[in-house]
């Protein structure tokens, strides 16, 4: 067998996937068929290149990590956003194409992150001094948890951008600028390991999102964007205060100033300060998630935001809260996080999974319903993180990706109907299945994935979270009850999603305005196809994802438990004193600032002077 025919034989799964995508759907446009074929091909290529056997090969000879890769991923969109400012406002087509090319390149670049076996520790690390006088450095790196969130955001943002270019026709330049800047800021927040850098990206995200809601939003867009901004800002200012306090304490104990996450995570604060700083950080993140009772900004923001904004908000922006909770709250305040976990898990179940599900059931606006379902789903994610078990945390991270895909797709689907009818009230619809069969099929499919039907992505994550809460030692004796209640929340998800689907798509087609609605157009199909493909890739092959996060998740879990123990020891010895624990070694230590070679001649404190006096 010569090489050509053997390569042809090897290519048959991809060819088959392409053929399935291109030939089976009954679509008119050639472009659309081609695009669907490409989606099928890429999904097949993704699965086969991520298959565990390949990963083992890679582990034997790990490919080199190009340390500029993260800089490229983060700054390509930001530089692109600045470049957009110098392009002519009069040619929106050019602006859109440039934006799509930049986002596409960013996605391709981010796939490179998967080439490296994600062992515990930091990868693609890049450290440079930024403001050395204040101990602030430019420090970015990914691990097995953040890599998935980076890829989730580079995957969904181009789709959201492509979808919004279909419906938003005015002020294209501003739109492209905001999308690119938002994208860069989100990626930056996912990869930064310096608290100052993280804070900069965290705040930078707010501005483009505010613009997206405030300019292209619905009737009450100004109110919604204010609410979004104020809620998030209130939390993040408390976080800033906590960061400054930690840096100051660290300087007192260690003798040098640094904002580095790894250095500060070895600091054990005095008891009261530890709990207050944890509360400040957790508040900032839980507002972002959002968790009951701080969730009311989300429905307003979602209802008013344009489709693209909603997709990014749901798919990526909310994940920053959950991601930051693992990284910063559990990483730096393990003791307080451990102590608060059981109660917070109760809030996540009672206020998130159950309460938000019931409120979602009673919503008349489809978008508001999906917004409340987001609160419920993120309750699952947070529950997974609070369990402090490997299954729970891995399930939580997987559920973040799942929620990004399912809810992103749901918002795109709601945007489709909104573009046609300019309303989203369930009562306006009914029997849509008769006029929009393909749309209905997509909607029902994504609904199933959102509910968590086995075989779709939602099932795996929810299952792991519930399993984690059953076995959790952090939740203690309530773990089983909480796992049971969380399982009950899955039923409620079916209640609110299916009742909405039933009222919207089935039954008689009573409203005459709906009788001539067009089914999905080319753009909408092309946007939805990759999301639907990922629903099944994640649902059927969750191991492709779990394998790459496994060692990081178990590392994070183990360090969480260790740090909790160390925190308790320190509190038993002296609860009023800050302590510096020894630094971690190996791949985890990299990027710590160096200890000062010689202790600088600090001005003598009064006590030290007194000691000298008394010695004389």
């Amino acid at each position, binding site marked *: 067998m010569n090489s050509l025919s053997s390569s042809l034989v090897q290519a048959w799964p991809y060819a088959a996937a392409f053929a399935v995508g291109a030939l089976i759907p009954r679509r008119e446009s050639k472009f659309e068929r081609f695009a669907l074929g490409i989606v099928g091909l890429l999904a097949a290529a993704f699965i086969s290149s991520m298959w565990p056997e390949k990963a083992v090969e890679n582990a034997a000879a790990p490919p080199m990590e190009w340390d500029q890769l993260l800089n490229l991923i983060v700054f390509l969109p930001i530089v692109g956003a600045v470049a957009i400012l110098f392009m002519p406002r009069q040619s929106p087509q050019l602006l859109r194409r440039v934006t799509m090319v930049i986002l596409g390149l960013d996605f391709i670049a981010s796939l490179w992150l998967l080439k490296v076996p994600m062992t515990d520790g930091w990868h693609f690390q890049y450290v440079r001094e930024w403001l050395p006088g204040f101990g602030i450095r430019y420090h970015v790196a990914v691990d097995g948890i953040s890599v998935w969130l980076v890829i989730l955001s580079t995957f969904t943002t181009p789709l959201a951008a492509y979808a919004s270019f279909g419906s938003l026709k005015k002020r294209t330049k501003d739109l492209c600028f905001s999308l690119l800047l938002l994208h860069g800021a989100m990626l930056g927040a996912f990869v930064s390991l310096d608290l100052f850098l993280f804070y900069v990206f965290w705040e930078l995200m707010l501005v483009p999102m505010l613009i997206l809601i405030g300019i292209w939003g619905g009737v009450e867009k100004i109110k919604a964007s204010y609410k979004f901004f104020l809620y998030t800002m209130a939390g993040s200012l408390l976080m800033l205060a906590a960061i400054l306090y930690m840096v100051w304490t660290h300087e007192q104990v260690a*003798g040098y100033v640094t904002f580095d996450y790894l250095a500060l995570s070895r600091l054990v604060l005095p008891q009261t300060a530890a709990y207050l700083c944890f509360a400040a950080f957790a508040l900032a993140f839980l507002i972002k998630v959002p968790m009951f009772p701080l969730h009311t900004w989300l429905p307003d923001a979602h209802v008013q935001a344009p489709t693209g904004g909603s997709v990014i908000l749901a798919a990526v922006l909310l994940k920053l809260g959950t991601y930051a909770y693992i990284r910063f709250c559990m990483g730096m305040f393990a003791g307080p996080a451990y102590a608060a976990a059981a109660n917070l898990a109760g809030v996540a179940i009672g206020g998130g999974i159950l309460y938000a599900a019931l409120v979602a059931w009673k919503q008349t606006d489809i978008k508001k319903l999906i917004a409340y379902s987001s609160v419920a789903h993120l309750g699952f994610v947070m529950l997974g993180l609070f369990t402090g078990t490997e299954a729970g945390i891995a399930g939580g991270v997987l559920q973040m990706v799942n929620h990004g895909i399912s809810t992103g797709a749901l918002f795109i689907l709601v945007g489709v109907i909104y573009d046609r009818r300019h309303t989203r009230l369930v009562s306006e619809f009914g029997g849509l299945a008769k006029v929009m069969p393909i749309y209905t099929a997509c909607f029902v499919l994504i609904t199933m994935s959102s509910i968590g039907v086995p075989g779709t992505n939602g099932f795996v994550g929810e299952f792991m979270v519930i399993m984690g809460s059953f076995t959790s030692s952090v939740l203690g004796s309530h773990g089983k009850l909480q796992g049971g209640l969380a399982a009950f929340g899955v039923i409620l998800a079916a209640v609110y999603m299916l009742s909405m689907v039933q009222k919207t798509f089935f039954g008689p087609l009573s409203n005459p305005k709906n009788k001539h609605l067009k089914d999905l157009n080319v753009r909408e199909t092309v946007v939805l196809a990759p999301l639907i493909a990922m629903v099944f890739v994640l649902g059927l092959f969750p191991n492709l994802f779990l394998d790459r996060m496994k060692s990081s998740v178990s590392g994070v879990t183990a360090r969480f438990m260790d740090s909790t123990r160390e925190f308790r020891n320190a509190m038993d010895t002296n609860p009023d004193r800050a302590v510096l624990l020894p630094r971690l070694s190996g791949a985890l230590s990299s990027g710590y600032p160096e200890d*000062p070679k010689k202790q600088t001649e600090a001005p003598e404190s009064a006590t030290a002077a007194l000691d000298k006096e008394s010695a004389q």
Partner: protein
Amino acid sequence: MGLLGAVMTAFYMFRLYFRIFHGEFKGWKIVKNWVDPHAHAAHADDHHDDHAHHEFDPDEAREGPTPHESPWQMTTPLVILAGLAAVAGFLNAPLLHMHALEHWLEPVFKLASTGVKSIDPDHHMMLTLAVPGVLVGVAGVGIAWFFYISKGGEPAAELADKFPGVHRFLMNKWWMDEFYEETFIGAVDALAEFFTWADKWIVDGIVARLTAGIVQVTGTVLRYAQTGRVQAYAAAMVLGTACLGWFMLTPHASAKPFENHRTGSYRVEAAPGLGYTYRWSSKQGDGDFKFEGGEEFGDQRTTSFSLDRGAERTVRLEVQDAFGHHSSWEYAVTRPKDDRPPGSAPANMVIQQDDQGRPHLVLPPGHPAPQGDTQ
């Protein structure tokens, strides 16, 4: 109980069969060569009356064609299933010595067999069980025939008339759906309604509306202070200056103590002030205050002393300003008995005594040296 169930199964299945396939046709009035009057309209505009078929008047006498056999797509699977249903029972019939499926489910029940005791794997019982089994089946069919066929269904109608309550109870499936509707669904529904209301007015009301209201009210109140009238600003300024002046013109004694319990040396440093002079006095334990450096007010701003273990001392500072007003401040200190109070150093730091008996802090290797207060 099992026999009763078998009778009833046979009864209801044959009731179904007799009612559908025997007796008179009750569906609609049969018209030969009947043509669907809706067919044309539905074809011309099939968007329109999709629901027309669902909404018919049940009392209206409807007409239709002669009922016909179902198409082959439906018949074929039915024939296959019927054939298997008729034959499959014999696959494992001991009476015919066929054992094709005997071990089929064994792997599944392997674990269960440890917990559950099998009463009769005995083959002698087979015939004694099979004969009544067939008989009760026949009995069920017979009862169904009596009720629904023999007198044109009269006994069934009579029975329903005789026990209307039972009939209604069974017709409504034991009211099971209604029961769930009223209890579980109703409760969850009410809860959801309440939560939706609470989310808007309590959660959002407190977290967003109330805080926004407080900010707004504060702003409104403060706005009245910003009238833009110079006289009002001047009056506020005069008042503020007067208060500040009053504060400046009265003495405020205050000092900051520096303690070192390990060495037993203490120092107190008075806060400075415009035109202040100071006088220090102190007492040991419960004794009287004794002046240090004379009764006169002087320029001495600090005082230091050392204490033995467990000793107690109170220091009093008096301040006189340029106008001769006085103010005083007191500070009491006890040196702890134990040189090293529990937990004065972190767990991983070890305190050793050096050769002069002074404490000396040993840090773990690689630990950056701490600054300041421990030495």
